[in-house]
């Protein structure tokens, strides 16, 4: 009887020891073996210059020897969801295993039954607001809305949203997409509104629309989608985009033209993106292994190299795991200290306001 209890005790102690070390351990050998048996992973919407995904993907391939099948890198969050829906029952190469979408798409995808839960081994170090309690979706990185400025055409860079209304920026300001459909431009409008409304989140959507209406009437707004090519060509010298995009576009230009990335002094909005595994993933184990890699220190730092703030940033910083050179390449930290992380409800509200109001308020019918 005594040795039964002792065995029980030692067993439970062993389990306790094992579970606490699991939090920082490598993915289990079974997972790796199962993933290798599947042989490949299908990703979607991962441009190589977005958050340094090029290197992250290469790192994953080198470490585990799996093949990665990359679908449409230019897809938006909506496209990724549609891709899962369209490929229900299809185990061919067109079906994505994992998605990387804007925060508000997590809960809606879960509600539609499109994703499956998985808690990575570093689960606990992910902030609670950035993940689903049941493990369906989890934040991966964030960035803040900033200005990308062409120094050839702009003598003095704007420091804040209100500056953009100045006459010297006539025909210069552009968004990175269509505010009726794209996450990035919608948040840009919100950020402008937040600055104009003095920090009042509830009023920011409406205020943002009015800001862009004024920008358009003053002739400062260029309705062309801002990207690397029109930026260099001169059509869109000032683009409102995520800091990591601005930095990597700027880098790719190699000084032609010289650029500057400015985090505005007010209206600093952070956008969180989330990872999830498709409920119909043809390679679920490869997908899980991918998640383990992304949330390991290696994966998180890979994103930081691409100028994105990984979700475990605070945890990594506290443990002194972040190399100084990486930190130096990012814009000054004070800008980020003011960043607002809108909640899901707040996001839903301002998205609705902006997408429905854009045409009425700003989009003057082209004559």
């Amino acid at each position, binding site marked *: 009887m005594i040795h039964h209890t002792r065995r029980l005790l030692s067993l439970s102690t062993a389990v306790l020891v094992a579970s606490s070390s699991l939090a920082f351990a490598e993915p289990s050998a079974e997972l790796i073996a199962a993933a290798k048996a599947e042989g490949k992973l299908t990703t979607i919407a991962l*441009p*190589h*210059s977005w958050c340094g995904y090029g290197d992250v993907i290469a790192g994953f391939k080198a470490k585990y020897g799996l093949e990665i*099948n990359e*679908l*449409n*890198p*230019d897809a938006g969050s909506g496209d990724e969801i*549609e*891709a899962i829906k*369209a*490929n229900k*029952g*299809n*185990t*061919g*190469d*067109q079906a994505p295993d994992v998605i990387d979408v804007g925060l508000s798409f997590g809960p809606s995808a879960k509600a539609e039954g499109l994703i499956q839960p998985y808690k990575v081994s570093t689960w606990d170090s992910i902030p609670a607001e950035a993940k689903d309690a049941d493990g369906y979706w989890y934040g991966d990185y964030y960035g803040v809305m900033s200005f990308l400025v062409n120094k050839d055409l702009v003598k003095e860079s704007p420091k804040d949203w209100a500056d953009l209304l100045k006459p010297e920026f006539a025909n210069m300001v552009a968004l990175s997409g269509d505010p009726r459909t794209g996450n990035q431009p919608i948040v840009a409008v919100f950020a402008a509104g937040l600055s104009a409304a003095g920090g009042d989140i509830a009023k920011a959507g409406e205020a943002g629309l009015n800001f862009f209406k004024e920008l358009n009437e003053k002739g400062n707004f260029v309705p062309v989608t801002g*990207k*690397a*090519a029109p*930026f*260099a*060509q001169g059509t869109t010298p000032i683009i409102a985009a995520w800091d990591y995009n601005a930095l*990597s*576009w700027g880098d*790719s*230009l190699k*000084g*032609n*033209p010289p650029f500057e990335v400015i985090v505005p002094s007010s209206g600093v909005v952070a956008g969180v993106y989330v990872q999830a595994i498709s409920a119909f993933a043809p390679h679920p184990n490869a997908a899980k292994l991918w998640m383990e890699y992304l949330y390991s220190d290696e994966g998180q730092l890979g994103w930081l190299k691409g100028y994105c703030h990984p979700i475990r940033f605070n945890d990594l910083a506290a443990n002194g795991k972040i190399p100084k050179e990486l930190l130096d390449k990012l814009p000054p930290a004070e800008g980020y200290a003011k960043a607002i992380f809108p909640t899901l409800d707040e996001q839903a509200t301002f998205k609705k306001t902006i997408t429905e109001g854009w045409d009425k308020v700003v989009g003057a019918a082209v004559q």
Partner: protein
Amino acid sequence: MKTNKILAWFVVAFGATYFIVPLLATFEFSLRMRRGEYSFDAYATVFSDVSFRESFSYSIAMAIATIAFGTLLVVPTAYWVRLRLPQMRPVVEFITLMPLVIPAIVLVFGYLRLYNSSSMIPFTGTTRGTDLLFLFALMTLSLPYTYRSIDASMRAIDVATLTEAAQSLGASWTTILFKCIFPNVISGVLSGAFITFAIVIGEFTIPSLLNRPAFGPYLQLIGANRAYEPPALAMIAFAMTWLSMGAIQLLSRFTISAPAKP
């Protein structure tokens, strides 16, 4: 006829200006990669990219296949409708107009639903199968243009008389189609072929969603984040497509004897 010629030259010159100037502007920008001087850096970057060569050759292969099978499908159909089923002409024409307004994205979603790996006709289950599905999709996309040009060409010849004459000489249907009708509509076939070629090279949505390594997705990928390479790529694609069409034109001149001029 002198005024005719002058007017003709004027029209062509005017058209040429309108078409060449935007290309010049694109070219000029693509040369600006190196700061302060003109250089072919952007082009060097593009040509050294393996994916460029692979995706372009894949698309060219698909283009040729689409032209071949598309022509094979449309010429007999247009001929038959003219000859035997004129009441079906409005229906067929309406069908051929549909690919223009049905967004490609809807078409592909439809394919994924109907022909995915767990359905009765699992095209997407294998790579070759997906290639085949892609081919059919491209044929569908080029249908409006090929049908319209071949039909315009066929209007000019009297199909009924030609057929009767050939039949009275004892020709079979295939002989009539390939030896009598086809050579007379070659002008329409070529026009359709040119348009099809350009469509296939540039098509993005379908190969993107079907996950085939075509040129369109490659173009999109480069265009998303690079500044100077996309215009360079556009120029290269333009030039190579033009050259390929010139090749098709030359080939047609040598392999198919021209019909006797009336």
